[in-house]
């Protein structure tokens, strides 16, 4: 059987060519039908303007801003409302102004204002979830990017460490830390952060391992760029949106994990209060006082959804290759939220 000597396609793809350039690129695609974007000199300003074009993203941003403000200033405003007990006025239903605005969301099983407790819990929740996600994100991502870029032994060892952490019972870790040390906020943050590092580590490694074989990374190597410079310039900016989207999903996970720790009695301890703890403690009262668990649960759900919407939007807005989509007229705007996540989460 005779075969043509030269393969007709203009695409060289040998077994030893490990460049792995994305096979999805057709050899001669015309430029994407990208309409010229207005001059994006001032990125911040235009980001803001782009945001305003998207109702959902704007709403999400407002919700998050509100949550942030409540976390920072709320506790000052509510004063001792969150701690003032009145056993004789326990479990008052919400949406009644009989006891003043402080009790508009009802009272809990000790007669404390639900509003006040939700506000105080906002700060605790955020100050557990944000640092936990942040620490895991920074450590896991940098480690994963580094391991994936260099491959070889560094990659193998890193992945096995990730395996170890992932198959380690996080509850044991929690009990140990809380036993040997104290169940302080800092320790809970630490546990949640450590156990979530592998998620970022694995995702960042996979992306980075793929990126380090890209041609533009090879190009950077031929200039003599150092690995750290290449990672900083070519790998991290591309991996970051995926990792950030992942982080917003993780933000939700961490809030839930913290509430599960509370459910098992080893999470945030009274008199500190978080949304998760409120849901956990309120579960007993589902049939007698539903608001004890529903209201903090709603806070978790709304915050999570807002964070996810904004993250999906941000992912597009920060990607020059996709940004034009946002400036299209409304009905054609393709991926407004919920874009591709290659990230792994649990």
């Amino acid at each position, binding site marked *: 059987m005779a075969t043509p000597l030269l393969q007709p396609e203009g695409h060289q793809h040998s077994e030893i060519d490990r460049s792995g350039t994305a096979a999805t690129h057709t050899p001669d695609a015309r430029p994407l039908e990208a309409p010229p974007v207005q001059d994006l000199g001032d990125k911040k300003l235009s980001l803001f303007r782009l945001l305003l074009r998207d109702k959902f993203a704007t709403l999400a941003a407002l919700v998050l801003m509100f949550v942030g403000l409540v976390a920072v200033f709320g506790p000052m405003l509510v004063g001792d409302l969150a*701690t003032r*007990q009145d*056993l*004789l006025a*326990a479990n008052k239903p919400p949406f009644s102004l009989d006891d003043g605005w402080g009790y508009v969301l009802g009272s809990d*099983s*000790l007669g404390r204002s639900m509003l006040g407790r939700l506000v105080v819990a906002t700060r605790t929740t955020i100050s557990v979830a944000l640092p936990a996600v942040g620490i895991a994100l920074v450590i896991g991502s940098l480690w994963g990017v580094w391991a994936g870029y260099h491959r070889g032994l560094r990659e193998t060892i890193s992945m096995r460490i990730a395996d170890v952490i992932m198959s380690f019972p996080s509850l044991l870790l929690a*009990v140990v830390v809380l*036993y040997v040390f104290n*169940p302080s906020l800092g320790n809970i943050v630490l546990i949640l952060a450590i156990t979530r590092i592998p998620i970022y580590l694995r995702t960042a490694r996979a992306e980075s391992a793929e990126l380090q074989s890209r041609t533009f990374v090879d190009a950077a190597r031929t200039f003599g760029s150092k690995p750290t410079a290449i990672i900083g310039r070519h790998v991290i900016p591309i991996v970051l949106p995926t990792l950030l989207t992942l982080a917003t999903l993780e933000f939700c996970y961490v809030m839930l994990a913290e509430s599960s720790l509370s459910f098992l*009695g*080893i999470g945030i*301890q*009274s*008199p500190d209060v978080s949304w998760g703890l409120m849901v956990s*403690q309120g*579960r*007993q*009262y*589902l*049939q*007698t006082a539903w608001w004890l668990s529903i209201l903090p649960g709603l806070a978790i759900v709304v915050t999570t959804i807002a964070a996810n919407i904004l993250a999906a939007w941000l992912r597009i807005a920060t990607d020059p290759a996709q940004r034009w989509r946002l400036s299209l007229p409304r009905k054609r705007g393709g991926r407004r939220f919920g874009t591709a996540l290659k990230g792994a989460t649990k």
Partner: protein
Amino acid sequence: MIFSTLAVGGTLVLSSCSVANSEQVEGDAGAASDTIRVVLSQEPPTLEACEANLTSTGVVVRSNVTQPLVERNPTTGDIEPLLATEWEATSDTEWTFKLRDDVTFHDGTPFDAEAAAFTIDRAVNSDLGCNVEGYVFGDDDLVVEAVDETTLKVTTASPDPILPLRLSFVEIVPTSTSSEEKVREPIGTGPYAIEQWDAGQRITLAAYEGFWGDAPAYPKAEYQWRSEGTVRAAMITSGEADIAMGIGPDDGIGELGVSYPNNETIALRLTGEIAPLDDARVREAINYAVDKETIVSSLYGGTDKVAAQLIPEGVVGHNPDLEPWPFDLDRAKELVAEAKADGVPVDTKITLVTRSAQFPKVTELSQVLQEQLSQAGLNVELKTVETSQHLQYQLRPFVTNEGPIALLVQHGNQAGDAAFTVEQYMTSTGAQSTFGTPEFDAMIEEAGLTEGEDRQSAYEEVFAYQNENVVQFAMIAHQTGIIGKAAGVDYEPNSSSGDELRLSEMTPAN
């Protein structure tokens, strides 16, 4: 008679049915009539008879699978005959028991004095490390002797007026039982024999046809376990179970909850040798500051009783005349201020240690206590720990270096005699006592040697003395347990139901 409440209906006939298939689906309507379904809060770690004083084991085993020689009537506190028909102290240290001669074990072997002697020897004198040994007997071994088939002689190292009470915790097993290792599924003389244990899922018991007493109303019993109180409650309301143990006041059991005094008392135990708790005025202030009435009425739906002492009514030594400390915040503040004026460091942080999930609403209670003590002008910090950690605070050697501690304790006197309480909680070297006084120690030791009426009044004095002169405790409440009970079952729980759930007292309601 012993089981006066026991009613034998026509269901007796059903007991002759062969062992039904054990894969009966719960909720099966047909199952309701001949199987009593109980849901516990945890799976028994073992059913070993010599561990039956553990609540989770005893609730299944005691009086159902195995029986002791004598038993304590939970209502009257009297010791009543069971496998032994009569007993007497033949000397200061020697007791003689007359045993029944019509009893057989589930394997058909007859019960006799030898089996009883073997059991006591195995539980108390062996190296098995039985829980009952540490729980009801001291360091000294017992000398047991089977005089004849139906006569048992027990000799103690020192005089022990409550030996029969102690022996009521020893569940009799046949001599074929291993004395080398513990046995997960014991053979006993009780109305039910263990049929099957599907680890992790359920235990089924079947009525023993050769039982010496009246046959139980339900030919079969099935135990399951769920750790969530709301789920146990739900199983009653949805008809999946007939009896649910350990229901909390907000678990949603509704009308089907039956409350009973469970002999548990909650109190704050104060480290009386660490400032500022070393000042009696501060300890008194804590007693005044706790608003027990409101706690009981608001948190516990008014079913608990405000406590004045560590044991409830019905336990030998309970002092009926003792009044609970009144709630008087002003007086508390005054006492703290006085102490402060005398240089007592009342601003020192006091750690209020509680154990998560120890009893219903413990989290709520601890926050209330923290708030109320703070109102009195004390600096109180809350610390919630899990069981293992809690024990480090509860038992000697205590946690040190954590400053003054107010420990929330839940004490249950299962045995029905104040001796089991005061030796532990009130002597200056008691395993669970932080301090005491020499006079008090002497008083307690004397009380332990008394009998009958003297014993009652001696312990009454001990409790009064504690409140007046020692004040190691700030009493809160005698608790009430709630059992979930399906409408189709007649059962009246009593103070020992939590430790010893007598299936033979349960009958189908008509």
